[in-house]
């Protein structure tokens, strides 16, 4: 037995075992949760047959329960707003930081990475105080939630787009300038088309981050209409459980996975080599 495990010419079996055990440990609970979204009964622990009733049934299903529907809609709305604001802003910042080679550029670059490592709860509390005390006119609710999500997703856009910018280098802009293109045309006709894969990928990452976010969104929420899917799941998971929660969680998971798969595909397919930072950022989500 020991010899079989330790055989230096064989496959690394101990390693394979640990890896396999981890994958099962991490996937099986999610799989079971998804499975019970299709349970025919009310139970979330006892299998009573296959059905779509928690998705499309006439009572208590995702498509007919007003609370669940409102949460899904608000989640998607927030994600859309966040993408629309964070992506153009992040691309602009990335372009600016790439050009800025003077004093202070190094520390700004490091600070751009801070939101990636700041505990989300710290950022949530800080933003809550900001909207309550400094900008009470904005108040809590959709606006505050969107601003909060833009704040912490912006860094991902900057990191992904800058990774691509570094691998593109300056030569294409120089070539465009050489051929007579003024600075804005160097960006519009050359840089943006070359950055397109990174922009699409970062939009997908921001979208996925927004859908999954709980802490910041929870802190900055206002009334019941600003409840998102993760908030709803948290609030009702222990109180009034029903397989409809599993159903809505399944939908959220599918949207996230589909977006990330799209991001990964677009980046790999169109960006060619380089830009490992972007791939790492996508995987990190």
């Amino acid at each position, binding site marked *: 037995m020991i010899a079989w495990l330790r055989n230096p010419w064989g496959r690394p079996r101990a390693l394979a075992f640990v890896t396999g055990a981890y994958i099962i440990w991490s996937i099986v609970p999610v799989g079971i949760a998804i499975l019970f979204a299709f349970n025919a009964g009310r139970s979330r622990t006892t299998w009573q047959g296959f059905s779509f009733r928690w998705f499309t049934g006439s009572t208590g299903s995702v498509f007919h329960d007003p609370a669940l529907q409102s949460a899904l809609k608000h989640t998607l709305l927030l994600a859309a707003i966040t993408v629309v604001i964070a992506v153009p802003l992040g691309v602009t910042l990335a372009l600016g930081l790439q050009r800025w080679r003077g004093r202070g550029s190094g520390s700004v670059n490091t600070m751009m990475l801070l939101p990636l490592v700041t505990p989300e709860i710290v950022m949530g509390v800080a933003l809550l105080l900001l909207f309550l005390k400094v900008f009470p006119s904005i108040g809590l609710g959709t606006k505050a939630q969107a601003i909060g999500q833009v704040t912490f997703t912006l860094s991902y856009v900057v990191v992904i787009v800058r990774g691509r910018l570094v691998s593109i280098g300056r*030569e*294409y802009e*120089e*070539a*465009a*300038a*050489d*051929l*007579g*293109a*003024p*600075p804005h045309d*160097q960006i519009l*006709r*050359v840089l943006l*088309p*070359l950055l397109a894969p990174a922009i699409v990928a970062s939009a997908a990452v921001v979208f996925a981050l927004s859908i999954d976010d709980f802490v910041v969104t929870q802190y900055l929420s206002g009334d019941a209409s600003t409840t998102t899917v993760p908030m709803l799941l948290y609030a009702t998971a222990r109180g009034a459980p029903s397989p409809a929660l599993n159903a809505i969680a399944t939908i959220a998971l599918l949207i996230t996975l589909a977006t990330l798969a799209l991001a990964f595909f677009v980046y790999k397919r169109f960006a060619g080599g380089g830009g490992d930072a972007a791939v790492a950022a996508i995987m990190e989500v």
Partner: protein
Amino acid sequence: MPTHGEIQLEELTKRFADVAAVDGIDLHMPPGEFFTMLGPSGCGKTTTLRMIAGFQRPTSGKILLDEVDVAQVPPHKRNVNTVFQNYALFPHLDVAGNVGFGLKYLRCTKDEQRKRVAEALDLVQLCDFARRKPAQLSGGQQQRVALARALVLRPRVLLLDEPLGALDARLRKGLQVELKTLQAELGITFVFVTHDQEEALTMSDRVAVMNGGRVEQAGTPREVYEEPSTVFVADFLGVSNLLTGEASADGDGCALRVGERTFRARQGATSERGEVKAMIRPERIAVEEHGTVGENRMPGLVERAVFLGNSFELHVRVVGGDLLKVTMPNDGTGIPVEEGTAVALHLPAEALRVLAPSSPPVEVA
């Protein structure tokens, strides 16, 4: 003779932090000529080219393009175009899109744009490739697209940054000839940057040999090869033998005392006195029968004889310890030599060149 496309660099300097990449150079690039800046990496040739293109802003000095100083003009407003070392073709545009990129800024009609793109592609024989993307082309084809993209704008000066560097040897040879022919036909001033001395000699009307941010010597290929004024130029262009000796007056040349022997030298800085270096090319040394005596002759022993087909390359150890490289043509007239043969070497006075000590003040051709 073309009347425009003249470049005059005056006291041009570029510093990066404390390092002078280009250290106050003066160069005249006459209109319609093939001008080459030659030197090892880090000599400042590419930085100079990038300043002419406008990508680098000079620390000080002037860049006169047809007598107008363009040193502070941004690159998109200069009537010079560049062929980049790795071509920098836009990967998202096809060949026609790349070649037509700059025409948008020349205020010509769509029809004229199409016509000029077609002409430019015809010039580089790539008409059938208009719809290909750069990634679908070979290195040589990409190089032609880069050339067409620059020439379609009819620049006064075309800048070429080691454009043959990424190609294999056989392709290089062909493109060297093509580039030179194209330049002669178009009459556009070409400013070419390379570290390959053979490329510089075969293609150029004029060569500036650069080292350490300065111009060591500028002149025609024959001048810089046959009449190098510094040790660096002599060494960088081809193979040369260097002798160190004491120079003293001797008629119209000078007498060079090397160890026990005295040579007469009639070329170069013959008015120098004291310790100097003198050079002679391997092909200018004559190999004679052992025992031959006379002016500028000395005995030696062949240490290595390499047969190269059309010539022999000999390493001859002379009395005093110096090792001289000698190229002996295989024309049937030479004496038979092999390793260990004792010979006499003749270093003709009119081929022995006294070099100025280290970098002289920059001279402009």
